[in-house]
């Protein structure tokens, strides 16, 4: 069992503090959801954990099995077991999707244990079938000219190919129609198991109808303000963030959609 623990995390972007002390602990076998209004720091949290160069961690720790990942380079964090699926991945012409994924998988393996082409293709075909992706997408350039839905499926495909210990999904559901949402959820649910944990960041409850979380955290104004079970997201759907704020006695300005 692996443990991911975020302790008193403070993060700034261009000298503006976005995260003001986030605490969260999860372990493999669990799926956690983070919900919260726009502009509350959910995406900042995911970017800071992965090590995006624009985000500055001013205080706190992110521990993966006791090791502080904040001291690692981005690629080291990934090889340690972290994965971040994003809404708007980079488009990189000239590198095929398949070539990229094979490089990613083999970056985790020793020189004498690289994944061969045949094994790779077999696994790729299998995962692409789960996600209902046409074969030709493997040979297209990485995200280039992909629609929003294709990009998100492709993020989940990478997740399934790389098989990380902890995956953070940053608003992977936004802009997806019901069919695409079901496919993406199918991919994540297929990963569910003892050796895998996921932190799902979402603005809407909708995705959680397909992927039932074990734990739900509500974030507002740079902090986790409430933690509960799957019911919490349903309560939120019914009462809205305003209702929750009243209950918690918070006075925070939130951006409406």
């Amino acid at each position: 069992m692996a443990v991911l623990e975020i302790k008193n995390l403070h993060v700034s972007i261009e000298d503006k503090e976005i995260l003001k002390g986030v605490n969260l602990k999860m372990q493999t076998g669990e799926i956690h959801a983070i919900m919260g209004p726009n502009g509350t720091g959910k995406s900042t949290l995911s970017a800071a954990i992965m090590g995006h160069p624009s985000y500055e961690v001013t205080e706190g720790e992110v521990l993966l099995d006791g090791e502080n990942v904040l001291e690692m380079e981005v690629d080291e964090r990934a090889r340690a077991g972290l994965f971040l699926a994003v809404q708007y991945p980079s488009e990189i012409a000239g590198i095929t999707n398949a070539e990229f994924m094979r490089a990613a998988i083999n970056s985790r393996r020793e020189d004498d244990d690289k994944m061969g082409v045949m094994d790779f293709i077999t696994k790729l075909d299998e995962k692409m079938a789960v996600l209902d992706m046409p074969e030709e997408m493997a040979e297209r350039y990485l995200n280039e000219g992909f629609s929003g839905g294709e990009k998100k499926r492709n993020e989940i495909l990478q997740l399934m190919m790389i098989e990380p210990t902890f995956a953070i999904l940053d608003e992977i559901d936004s802009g997806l129609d019901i069919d695409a949402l079901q496919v993406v959820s199918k991919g994540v649910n297929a990963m569910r198991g003892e050796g895998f944990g996921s932190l799902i960041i979402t603005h809407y409850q909708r995705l959680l109808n397909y992927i039932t979380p074990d734990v739900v955290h509500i974030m507002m104004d740079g902090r986790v303000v409430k933690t509960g079970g799957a019911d919490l997201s349903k309560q939120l759907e019914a009462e809205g963030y305003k209702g929750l704020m009243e209950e918690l006695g918070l006075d925070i300005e939130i951006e409406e959609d």
Partner: protein
Amino acid sequence: METKTKDYVSYSDALQAFSRGLKEPEWMLQLRLDALDKIEDLNLPVIERLRYNRWPLFQVPDLTGAPAPKTIDPFEFIEDKADAARVIQTGNDTVIETLPESLKEKGVIFTDMHTALRDHPELVKEAYMSKAVKPDTNKITAFHAAFMNSGLFLYVPKNVVIEEPLEAIFIQNSLVEDAFIKHVLIYADTNSSFNYVEKFLTKGNKKNAGNIVVEVVTKAGAQIKFSAVDQLGENSTVYFNRKGYTFRDSSIDWAIGAMNTGNVICDFDTDLVGEGSASDLKAVGISSGRQTQVIDSNVVNIGRNTTGNIFQHGVILDRATLTFNGIGHILNGAKGADAQQESRVLMLSDKARGDANPILLIEENDVTAGHAASVGRVDPEEMYYLMSRGIEKSEAERLVIRGFLGKVISAIPLRSMRDDLVQTIERKLTSR
């Protein structure tokens, strides 16, 4: 190797003997002698952002017609392929020439220039230095016209469509001191359609000049996909001129990798003459060491509704220089013309010098034109994304660069050529 650069006319007798020795037609000899007369009076072409008047470009070739004292084994560079359509030349000699029977029957001509001048003089004359590149354009073209010492002629007759690429490989013989004055003439007759790929290499380390002219003339409705990988050597100083000339509704798509290691001027030009004709140029370049490469792409829209695109991406390492000039010139009367260009340079060293220089010259109102240019470093967002999947920084950088150069790679139809370009890029990048 020191040759006097003044007294070109003194070569008149030697040149006549050279031409007669090759049994060239009279018009060819006359073209040589006329050009010889003009070399002195003509100026060097102006290449933006480059001073090259001290480059040793004017090396008079050996005109004795004697075989080179040292020869090259072509199989050091190529695989044996029996039934491909290809011509392989080492130095001035043609060592392999194969053309499938089916193409011969259709009237396709794919042979060395000397043979073509003997067997098909009138056909060569129709296009040789009379449309795309004229002998009196500048000092270099006149020198070329006078001293051209080997080359290739490709003719594809009317309505002939060829699926398999025609391939040419030219290996400069720098085991000996001799100028490399190569002429490739591609003449695509009405409504023909084909792929042509060519490769330029150097064997040996002698300091030699190259003066290479590749002319592509497309008659009405002809469609050509032209790709090239240039890998001339460190001690080769070269002026490289590829030029297209398009008749009505014809098109030339160029995909060129400038992977030379010496100082090279690449003049990649197209005159869009006929109404509705088009040219799409994709060029990539890598400069490394202390070399200078200038890619000077000049597309002239002459006919109505002509379309000219220039797309150039390059990478600079070490202390090298790489300059992209993109010149889109729309002449008065070219109504409905479109000229677009993008030039981007990626610098991987603090000592590298790069330039992306877009020039649009527009003399007509009813046209569309656009340009984009940048000189910069590897995009940190792309690096972050790749590294966030576990890929190490050096590997991520390599992938981004390959991606950056990828558009040209994917435009090359022949797999072996594509792989060759990829390997050349990898080799250049890993030698840092």
